[in-house]
């Protein structure tokens, strides 16, 4: 009994001693934290997209807006509404407004190049997003479009190159001067040129990524080449029209092998499930958003002169096929964090 009491008292004392030593331990401030947040106060980031209201731009913008809100800098969107002139005007006025960072999605490889150069001269860091000009600025985040083209073309060759006759391929591109047309065509050429197993029967532009145009071109080409083997599409939203044309022509999913690419949103999985396309290269908008936020933070903290560092982050591409299908791989605005 006595022994037990002693043990209990000893145990209690040990516990109290442990507790008091814990409360006596010193807390420490993270030396980086204060400057980090103080530096961000009053900073301003402006996003100039080609068009809001697409899964891509809404996704990127949501991710950028979230970080800005969490960290306490200002973020705004200036939509250029598919109007290159309006976009150029926006950037021109931004040069005099002097935000800290401009994030810009370029409609083509040329139009904004001079303006972006001027903006950087004026001390604004410019990050180009997914669609870039031929002028390199502080940062670029986006797909390696040439690689997307190569992947799609390789998939088509694997599908169509086995027959006795060369497999017939239709290429649907975007606006001729868009990076997503020009560079993707280069990727296609890398694989398809001098490849005797396949034959490109038509290369056509869908205008401004119009699904109605993709549909009518596919219909016309299918009339000329009923034995069409594959379509190399430019963007998931556009190729909804391509798929509609094939379906209307009585083709079953997979009769004509459709490849396309996009941000990997809900439509990507829906298209695979419904048989609209059989091969999908995703440039992973949630991943791009994370990269983008990292570059924005780097730009906001950079004390060196504008243009002295230039970073390119090509997005790791993810390939979807019916075999890899699973809803969890496709994002929606609600699942973005």
């Amino acid at each position: 009994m006595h022994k037990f009491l002693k043990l209990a008292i000893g145990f209690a004392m040990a516990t109290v001693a442990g507790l008091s030593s814990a409360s006596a331990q010193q807390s420490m401030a993270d030396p980086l934290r204060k400057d980090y947040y103080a530096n961000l106060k009053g900073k301003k980031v402006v996003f100039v997209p080609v068009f809001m209201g697409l899964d891509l731009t809404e996704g990127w913008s949501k991710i950028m807006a979230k970080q800005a809100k969490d960290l306490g800098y200002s973020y705004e969107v200036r939509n250029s509404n598919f109007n290159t002139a309006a976009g150029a005007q926006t950037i021109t006025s931004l040069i005099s407004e002097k935000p800290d960072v401009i994030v810009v999605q370029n409609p083509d490889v040329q139009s904004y190049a001079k303006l972006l150069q001027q903006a950087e001269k004026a001390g604004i860091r410019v990050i180009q997003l997914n669609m870039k000009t031929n002028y390199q600025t502080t940062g670029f985040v986006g797909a390696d479009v040439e690689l997307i083209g190569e992947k799609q073309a390789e998939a088509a060759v694997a599908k169509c190159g086995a027959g006795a006759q060369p497999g017939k391929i239709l290429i649907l591109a975007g606006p001729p001067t868009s990076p997503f047309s020009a560079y993707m065509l280069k990727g296609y050429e890398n694989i398809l040129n001098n490849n005797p197993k396949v034959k490109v029967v038509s290369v056509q532009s869908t205008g401004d990524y119009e699904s109605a145009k993709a549909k009518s071109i596919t219909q016309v080409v299918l009339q000329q080449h009923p034995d069409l083997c594959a379509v190399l599409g430019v963007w998931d939203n556009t190729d909804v029209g391509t798929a509609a044309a094939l379906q209307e022509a009585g083709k079953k999913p997979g009769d004509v092998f459709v490849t396309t690419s996009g941000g990997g949103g809900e439509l990507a999985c829906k298209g695979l499930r419904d048989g609209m396309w059989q091969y999908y290269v995703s440039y992973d908008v949630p991943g791009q958003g994370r990269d983008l936020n990292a570059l924005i933070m780097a730009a906001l903290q950079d004390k060196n002169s504008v243009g002295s560092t230039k970073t390119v982050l090509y997005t790791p591409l993810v390939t979807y096929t019916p075999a890899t299908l699973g809803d969890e791989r496709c994002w929606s605005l609600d699942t973005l964090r």
Partner: protein
Amino acid sequence: MQGSSIQTSHRSRAFGIFRGPGKAAGFDQLKIVSLLFVVIFVVYALLLPGFFTVGNLLTLMRTVAVLGILGLGMAIVVIGRGIDLSMIASLAVPSALVLMLAASGYSVFVAIGLGICMAIGIGILNGILVAYAEIPSLFTTLAVGIGIAGVGQIGLFDYEIVSWPPQLDVIAWIGRGSIAGLPYSVLAFLATAILVGIFLRGTRPGLFVYASGDNPGAARLTGIPLRPVMVMQYVMSSCIAFFAGLVLSASSASMDTRIFNLTWIYDVILVVVLGGIGLSGGRGGVANVIIGTLLIGTVMNGLTIMDVSFEMQNLVRGLVLLLAVLADSLINPRNEETAQQGDI
């Protein structure tokens, strides 16, 4: 010529509903464009393998069916001496609304009913601003179009591209599939053409449209309710645009509301003007729209078969329009007699 159009219309009615009044005799633009169409068609048929086949000709019709339907709506307004630049917004926004409502559980009837209400609302807004507030139609419809597209962008839709919900599959046939080999979208174009033809030539309001377009002042003096007729024109054009929107969205399984920002409206005006419906009003009819649509469809179809580049296709399209307009002004030069007050 002025003030006599009602009489002319009645006379031409005897020749059938598709015959345009006005320059009944002579070598007018309709004939020039028809000739151009025949020449291009024959050249293609001879030189392009695979052009002159039933399958390809149906495809050709199908690719321009929506454009043709829009052209018919635009024709009504242009004949009434106006222009409706908001047609693409009336095509995109109400039909995208229908898709969205159906996807969120409303019945097909309610969804389409609300779409029609919206289209009528756009038309009435245009009409009242043009007819009663007397703002030129060019500015009114431009502003209303931008406004409606903006409402769609900001308020109505999550994404600019609204996909066709399975709930609407019961009416998907209007844009897909075919009956006895004829695609429904082509039939939709033909049906609209017949209805608009009967309206313009066979009904009193239709003749009022010609009268008020040819000479508004004279039309008013003769007792035609000028302003209500103008409102009616815009309501018709926006409803026809809504119908075109349903055909288009059924056809491509989605409604891309971005098309408002693209150059579609110019294609619609191109079809109307190319066919020979003068922007000064009171001239032309359904036949003009059909021939304009066929010409553009043929040119583009051939260029696609030849795998001509996008820029080149735009260039050729521009040249064809220029050629047609040039030929018309050479053969039918404007003078004091033919010129109308208020020409654009």
